[in-house]
Every structure is written in structure tokens, then in C-alpha cells.
């Protein structure tokens, strides 16, 4: 009875994905969290999975959102001067599209759009809002820089599938990985259709005093600023007084 109930609940949960929830697929990173310690220099999170039988896989890793400022320089006579800046909001800090083959070869364009499997298909918000095509240059620059810094990566060699069963991949987190929740979404594709779907997470978090400071700087910004500045003044004064005596 209990078993049946659980199955029904599960089926209910799967209802929105009914079209492709039929094939078994499990993907799980080796760890559910990455701690940023003082020695943190990036992490390589091994991720394993199982599929039943041949098929193509797409693993999409989406980092937490991160607001950035874009600025540009323009030539003005012989000089290079500031040509404005915009804020880009709502974009993930990191986006990896790993696949067993080029995604365009696995899925039709409209399917790609449906599952948001294009690096440059990410919705970003440019502030202030620009009229017409004024935002296009900024948009292009954003994606170009993200790809240049290897924060937005499409890689069709990143997934290793052993005997059509075992899946192995490496999720590489950079040294300056944004703190927060990384979503790993896996799609199993057979003959141009998504037939399996799995989601898991990696939490990147700070620990110890660094975490405490990071939290304090956000949750009590002004108090933190006043405390830091006063502490700095006391430190400077005390050190000076000590050194100057000798």
C-alpha cells in the first residue's frame, strides 16, 4: 500500500515531464557540497551516472546568478575614453553544456530552445534598458567575455559513456566560483527526443571565519562597515604607537 502510494506521488510529480520520463537515468556528483577553504583553488567534481542502453546525454550545469558590470572604451580622436557602462543582471555566473555529441547534432533547434540548451540563449537583463538594438552590442560582448573566460562552455567531449551504461564527467569549478547552488540537469536523448531527465545539485559554500565575515558583510552591511573601519583605525593607531616608541 505504502509502495503504491509512493509510486502515485512520484508519478504525480513526474506528470509535467510525462513525455520523456520513461527512460531510467541517474546522475549524481560525488559530493553535494564544495567548501571554500583558505586553500581553495577551484574544484573538480567527479560526477557519475547510469543509463540503460545507448543514447546521447546532455549535462547542463548552471551556476548561481551573478550581477556584473560591463564597460567599454571607445576611440575619440587619438584618445581612448569611456564609452559607457551597463549592468547585466539575472545571468548565471557559470553555464556548462556538456554533451556526448555537438548539441545541434542531437537535438532540433526548437527542442534546444525548449530546454534552454544554448549558451547565448540565456536570458539576461541589461540595465538601464536600452532602446532598439542599442543593447545588442552589450549582449554580444557579455557572451563573448563569458566564453573567453571559460565561464560559459559548450563541450561535446566532456562526457564519457562506458559500454552505454556508465556515465562519467568532471565538473570544473573555478577558483572564484560564485557561492551558492549549482544545478546539474541531465537530459537523455534518443533519436532527437528527450527521453530521460535528472536533476542534482552542488552547493558551493564558505566555511569558518571566512563564511562568518562574508555573511556579516551582507546581512549587516553598515554595521560591518563601521566595525571594520573602526577596527582599521584602532589597528593603525596601536601599531603606530608601538613602533613609534622605539
Amino acid at each position: 500500500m505504502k509502495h503504491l502510494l509512493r509510486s502515485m506521488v512520484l508519478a504525480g510529480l513526474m506528470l509535467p515531464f510525462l513525455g520523456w520520463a520513461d527512460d531510467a537515468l541517474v546522475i549524481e556528483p560525488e559530493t553535494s557540497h564544495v567548501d571554500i577553504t583558505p586553500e581553495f583553488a577551484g574544484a573538480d567534481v567527479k560526477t557519475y551516472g547510469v543509463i540503460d542502453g545507448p543514447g546521447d546525454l546532455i549535462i547542463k550545469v548552471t551556476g548561481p546568478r551573478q550581477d556584473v558590470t560591463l564597460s567599454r572604451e571607445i576611440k575619440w580622436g587619438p584618445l581612448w575614453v569611456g564609452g559607457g557602462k551597463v549592468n547585466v543582471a539575472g545571468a548565471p555566473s557559470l553555464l556548462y553544456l556538456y554533451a556526448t555529441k555537438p548539441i545541434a547534432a542531437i537535438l532540433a533547434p526548437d527542442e534546444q530552445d525548449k530546454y534552454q540548451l544554448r549558451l547565448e540563449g540565456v536570458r539576461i537583463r541589461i540595465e538601464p534598458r536600452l532602446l532598439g538594438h542599442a543593447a545588442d552590442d552589450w549582449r554580444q560582448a557579455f557572451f563573448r567575455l563569458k566564453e573567453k573566460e571559460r565561464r560559459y562552455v559548450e563541450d561535446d567531449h566532456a562526457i564519457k559513456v562506458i559500454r552505454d551504461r556508465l556515465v562519467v564527467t568532471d565538473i570544473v569549478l573555478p577558483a572564484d566560483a560564485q557561492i551558492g547552488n549549482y544545478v546539474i540537469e541531465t537530459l537523455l536523448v534518443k533519436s532527437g527526443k528527450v527521453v530521460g531527465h535528472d536533476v542534482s545539485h552542488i552547493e558551493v559554500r564558505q566555511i569558518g571565519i571566512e563564511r562568518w565575515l562574508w555573511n556579516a558583510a551582507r546581512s549587516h552591511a553598515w554595521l560591518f562597515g563601521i566595525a571594520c573601519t573602526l577596527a582599521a583605525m584602532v589597528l593603525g593607531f596601536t601599531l603606530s604607537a608601538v613602533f613609534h616608541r622605539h
Partner: protein
Amino acid sequence: MQLFLPIAHMDVNIVLILMYGGLVGFLSGLVGVGGGFLITPLLIFTGVPPIVAVSSGATQMAGTGAGASYIQWRYGNIDFRMALVLLAGSWLGGGLGVYLANILVRGGQFGNVVTFLYVVLLGFIGISMLIESMRAIIRGGAPDAPVPGEIVVRRTRRHPILDRLPFQMEFPISRVRMSALVPLMLGGGVGILTSLMGVGGGFIMVPVMIYLLKMPTKIVVGTSMFQLLFTTAAVSIMQAGANHSVDPFLAGTLILGSILGTSYGARLGARMPAEKLRLILALVVVGVAIKMVMVLVVPPSEIYEMTVRVR
């Protein structure tokens, strides 16, 4: 030896940061400038996000300023009365500057205009100081070597309109008498500029005090340091409050390095003749101007730049 910065979110070499601090502290102790123009690019070059570099630099200056002010006070180099008037002016000007900046940002190109004005201003100040201090060194001392009747000479040398302004005030430590409106307005002008440009402004304030207010160089160094302490403390608090960008580990390490530098700089400054101090300051100011010109002239390798706003 590595240190992880929780706010900048990166590893840095402690020795390197201590050296940066030492260098900036040395300059502060010697000529009374904050060194924000130096520390910010150094940190950015090391990979610290610009906003964290600017903010933690301000925190560091508040710390270094507190230490350096103590030393300068021990040398009797601070004119507190003058500092307070200048400070009142620079805060008023700073507030007005923020307001102006808000309006001007909407106007688009104004940032560039300010940069040009700044380069011209710095270049002019720097080169005039360079010429003046070189001449003084060649002549062997003067013009502000303490000679009898000096104050009288100075007073007549200033524009007569300055002596007719209301609120005449005696500044005994600086050995000048003038209307309080003069330093108030000068402080205000510097405050506006610093708000627009986002730097401490020590290297504008110092020449202003030496050449326009005709204060003795050593008193200028001490007084500038003292008033800088308050300006940078205010900036530090505001940056932390608005941008969450003050990194306490970074600022602390910088302060540690800078205090050694400041102590050495102030000791050297106390022994050094005033015209040589002015020459060093002139070189610093010219150096900053050249750096700004370079930024304008050298083509950037990447036209677009992306910086993470808040982590």
C-alpha cells in the same frame, strides 16, 4: 605564504600585500598623500575585483591615517583648526559632488570631461611644483624656510582680496591668518573633485595647502594626513554599506605593512628639507598625471570589460 580573502574571494600572497602597504605607507608618511591612486591599481593588477580594491583601499587609508596622524601629532605637525575647516569644506563639497555626479552621469560623456580636467589639473599642479621645488633646491632652501618677517611677506604675497573676506581667523600652527572661507571653499572644491573622481584627493589637497594657503610643508603633510583619515573613513563605511566590498583581511594586511612604511616615511620627512619633500610630492603628482594620460592614449587590448559587481 597565502591568505584567502573572504570578500575579494581569492588567494593573495601576504608578503606582496605587505609590500604594497609598506610602499603606500611610506609615501603617506613622507608627503601626506593617501596613496589611493597607487594602491587601487596595484590591487586590481593582482586580481582583486576593482570595487573591493577601491573600498578596502579606503579602509586601509583610514587605518594608516590614524597611525600616521598619531606620528604627525607627536611631531607637532597637525594644524587641527585648519584641518577641521578643510574637513567641513570637503564634506560639504563631497556631498555636492555626489549630487553633481548623479546628474552628470545621465549626461553621458561627462565622466570623460572630468578625466580630462583632472589630467590637466594634475599636470599643471605637478609641473609647477616640480619647477618650484627644483628652483628652491638650486637656490638652497626657501621659499618657506622660516626667516624673520616671513608671515608679513606671505600675507602681502597673497591676493589682497583674500585679506578682505569676512571671518578672518588665526591659524597659529600654520603661521597664517586668513578668512575661514578660504580653506572652506578650497576644501569644498577638492571635495567635489574627489566625489566625481572617486579618489581621496590628498595629492590635490597638499599642493593647495602649500601653494594657495601658503602653509609650511611639514604642517601640510600632517594636516593632510589628519583630514584624510576622516574622508577615507567615511568612504570606507559607505562602500561597505552600499557595496559590501570591504575586505577586512585585505585592509588589515595592508595596514600592517603601511604602518612600518609610514613610520619610516615620517621619520625621513622630519629630517628632510621642505623643498625636497615638495620635489618628491611633485614627482608623485606628475607620475599620477602621466599614468592617467597613458590610460587615455594606450589602446586597450579588450574594448569591453566585465567586472563582477557583488559576489
